């Protein structure tokens, strides 16, 4: 099994990579920090990976995406699963008052993913197989006051994936949209954690299961599907007054 993981040093990506390593997969990792990539490579080899290669890349610059994927193709020859995990959690207040910040965040959480999907689609179409799995967020289901910049970027990706799924169907390529809820990871270290929070390990388990089963949209954990369906049912004249 040949697996590409983009944003590989994030907590969810790391936990997913470890599950694939235990299945003796061939892994290719892309992330920004080389030191962390070297450490992760060794960790995954000890956990049973068949082989691990990596490429250091700042994903916010779309210019380099093509070159990076060329490296992947040379190393893996074929991609069975591409898992896109990178992203950032912006400060809503700052983004609301500073368009340049908002643009930067929408670029990393939205446009950079669409750029990578474009490149990956070409690879998948050529090989007439593959699974494209992208981590978006429950925040994309409805624009809520505390994080609608982040939500807008994630929602853009989810909408894009819905269309892409149909386009790639004819090429035997499967597209999965993974929507985690609240995850207790370094990205959310500033939050007080309550009952609805889950660990990166649990989320990774559900992601791998979702990919195995070829689900279309995976809410992790599953109860977020019900929570978000409920949130979407709230009439707008009430919803606009809610600070949830």
């Amino acid at each position, binding site marked *: 099994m040949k697996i590409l993981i983009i944003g590989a040093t994030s907590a969810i990506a790391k936990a997913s990579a470890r599950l694939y390593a235990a299945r003796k997969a061939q892994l290719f990792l892309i992330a920004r920090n080389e030191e962390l990539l070297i450490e992760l490579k*060794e960790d995954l080899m*000890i*956990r*049973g990976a068949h082989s691990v290669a990596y490429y250091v890349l700042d994903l916010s610059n779309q210019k380099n995406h093509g070159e990076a994927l060329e490296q992947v193709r040379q190393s893996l020859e074929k991609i069975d699963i591409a898992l896109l995990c990178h992203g950032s959690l912006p400060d809503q207040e700052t983004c609301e008052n500073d368009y340049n910040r908002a643009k930067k965040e929408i670029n990393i959480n939205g446009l950079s993913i669409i750029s990578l999907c474009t490149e990956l689609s070409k690879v998948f179409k050529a090989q007439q197989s593959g699974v494209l799995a992208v981590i978006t967020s429950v925040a994309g289901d409805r624009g809520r006051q505390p994080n609608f910049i982040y939500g807008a970027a994630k929602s853009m990706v989810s909408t894009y994936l819905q269309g892409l799924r149909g386009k790639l169907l004819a090429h035997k390529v499967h597209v999965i949209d993974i929507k985690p809820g609240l995850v207790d990871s370094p990205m959310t*270290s500033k939050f007080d954690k309550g009952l609805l929070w889950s660990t990166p390990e649990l989320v990774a388990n559900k992601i791998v299961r979702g990919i195995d089963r070829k689900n279309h949209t995976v809410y992790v954990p599953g109860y977020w599907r019900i929570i978000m369906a409920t949130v979407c049912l709230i009439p707008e004249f009430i919803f606009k007054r809610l600070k949830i």
Partner: protein
Amino acid sequence: MQLHGWGRFPGVTAELLEPPTRESIQKLFGTKKKHGPMIPRGAGRSYGDSSLADTVLSSRFLDSFLEFNATTGIIKCGAGVSMGALLTVIIPEGFFAPVLPGTKFVSIGGAIAADIHGKNHHTDGSFCDHVRSFSLLLSSGEIIQCSRDENRDAFLATCGGMGLTGIIINATISLHKVSSVFIKRNSIVAKDLDDCMDLIDQNEDSKHSFAWLDCLARGKSLGRSILHLADHCADGLQQPKSRVSLSVPFGTPGFFLNRFSNKLFNNAIYEMWKHRKNPSIVNYNSYFFPLDNIRNWNRLYGSKGFLQYQFVMPSSSAREGIREILKIVSESSTGSFISVLKKFGNANQNLLSFPTAGYTLALDFKNKPSVFPLLSKLDEVLLAHGGRLYLAKDSRMSEDVFKAAYPNWERFVEIKKTLDPSNTFVSHQSMRLGLTQ
């Protein structure tokens, strides 16, 4: 946020730091130091207040494996790696953890800080006896290597030192080669305490042994127990099986575990084991980690939590001392739900390590006001018989009891002063025990 140990008592409000990398931990110290007194925390599986302070620094993201030599069985990993993750990696290569506690959810850093013991202490010693070296981050921001040869004082103080000397970043451990991860178990019924201790003494060759004890039994059957003896099978099977586990999702009402359910439970266990066939072959998970199958079992004790009372008494006085303690407990209305008795081998040189040659008994008590005077009474009996309490399970011992039972505490404080002159690493427990100001 609200934090507590595994016993859910005491609970405190603390700032929890969870740095994602070693570099980000290091940045918190030295000249750029921004935080006041703090204590490192692994998986939060110590029972009382040993990993509680105003600021708590979690090592949970230091969870990478760094080096593994599958020929020599030497592994180097981050302090946040759990015992369960370690087992998953090493079992397919034919290795097993040298020492296993009663749960696989502890971290390697925590295992060193508490110098944990397992069911094989009488044959293999405690966890730190198998630790070759570790990196320790000092409050100055410097990282030092510690082993029996290098920075020996720091090594002896940190093993069992409850996180008070610095932050363990990673550790190198010697693993055990095993013939199988399946366990051949013999369970023997002991009708009273003397019978049980005789049986333990007669079966010292058995690698993993412990006795489950009905601490509600009184009179003639005081100390009636089931002694479990186990060795690895020789069939070469290295296939761990995963099991479905149950979970206690919420705190249950405190009245769930009471005198009657306790009596019922202990009787049922005793009767159940009496009729089991011997020997039986079991998965290592069910032998070593029976309670891991019920996630968050600590919630069963209700919102106020519970206290563990684990002590060790030297062999010479243990029979008399343990009998006296069991008598006091069985006569009080606050019985222990699960009580475990086991024999320890010799002590090591670590300054604050718990195990010493003798017998150890672990009792648990639901937290209620009447428990505290009861445990103080037990402390008196304990000291009179030359015993001591396990720091990883303690949440209420007094400074006097601690200092009387751990004669090396002064040496520990001296070494701590050289390693941590700014007195940065402080827990609620260390304040209570007079180990730090």
